[in-house]
């Protein structure tokens, strides 16, 4: 099933990750697909990875931590071979991220404008 979010859809690496165990994304990966995962982590968990990893579109140590925390909060665990969340973007992870990002994209933008004023 193709990815639904505007952020992820039509990205070959992410589409592959969503259907193939062999296409999972982990430490050392780099490219546009990793950058989109960085964006998703900011949208969903308000977590920004290390600036160097961000600019290099690199799945480095801070991305590892952010992904692991993302999965832990949502209890994304492959119980067939795991007892706790790992730090790999697997089929279950990308599906969850895609679902959440698509939901966020469909919501009206909320903007708290109590802060906007001039005197």
């Amino acid at each position, binding site marked *: 099933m193709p990815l639904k979010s505007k*952020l992820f859809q039509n990205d070959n690496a992410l589409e592959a990750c969503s259907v193939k165990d062999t296409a999972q994304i982990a430490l050392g990966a780099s490219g546009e697909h990793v950058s989109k995962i960085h964006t998703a982590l*900011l*949208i969903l968990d308000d977590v920004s990875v290390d600036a160097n990893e*961000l*600019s290099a579109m690199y799945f480095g140590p801070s991305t590892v931590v952010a992904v692991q925390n993302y999965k832990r909060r949502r209890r994304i665990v492959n119980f067939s071979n795991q007892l706790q969340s790992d730090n790999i973007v697997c089929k279950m992870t990308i599906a969850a991220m895609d679902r959440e990002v698509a939901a966020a*994209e469909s919501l009206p933008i909320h903007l708290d404008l109590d802060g906007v*004023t001039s*005197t």
Partner: protein
Amino acid sequence: MAVTIQDAQLKLMITDGDVKPDVYINPAGHIVCHLTKGFVASTFPKDQGDALTAVAHAPVSVGHGDNIDAWSFGFVQIARANFYGAFYAGRISREGSVGVLAHNPPALASPILLDGSGDPPDPFFQDPSRTSYLPPMLHTSWGDHPAVRIPLTMPNPTTSGVKNHLFQFIFDREFWTIYTSKDPAGAIRYIVHFHWKVRYDVELLWRNQMPILRRSKSDFSMVSKNVKGAPTDSDLQAMLASPKGARANQTFDSAQTQAFRGARGPNRSENPQWFTTVPRDFWG
């Protein structure tokens, strides 16, 4: 004989020595550009002190049978919003950029605004009851503190709603503050004025997800003092002829709200890539 201000002996004293444009960055979500003196971050926009003040001491002669209590004396203030731009960017170019402009239509129909503090009667900036009359002198005080608060982040709908971060804010305004009388029939006479400018112009960068002031080119300047009569700028004449209507703070707050929240268009652009003006190192 009517009530007559002795213009030649009128003294208008302006205190602006401690005015210093600055920016308060609240990492929880906004910045406040202010003029330092009288600024109270914890209560803004309420309970702020005046940054600059003025007092007019005007000798007045009152004709036999005339009642000075039927006259009003005070300051009228006209503001001109020259530019208001808040510019946001994603962490990388692919996360987009947002520009908010609030000084132009449709958010702001006219940049010329009748200013006011509190809820004074037209056309005054503050309630004319601030004027005291100790024969033969009228004493009228005035004070202001133009400041502005805006959010540090803006969601960008063109890039999945990801937060874009403030990297530049410019708000340029001019003010004409005019000592004015209003007779019992409502006739207005502009007696003397001063002209001043406030430009907030700040650039931020972000480190470890925290905003830091990179540069401030903010400026306060007193353009002219003790100028007899009304301002002569052509774009002010309509307001000077009919100084009434909504006050600048309400009008401009509404313009800002529309610019930030209203439809995309002349007052807000949302882009899938960075503006060319985004500094490469703004996020780190």
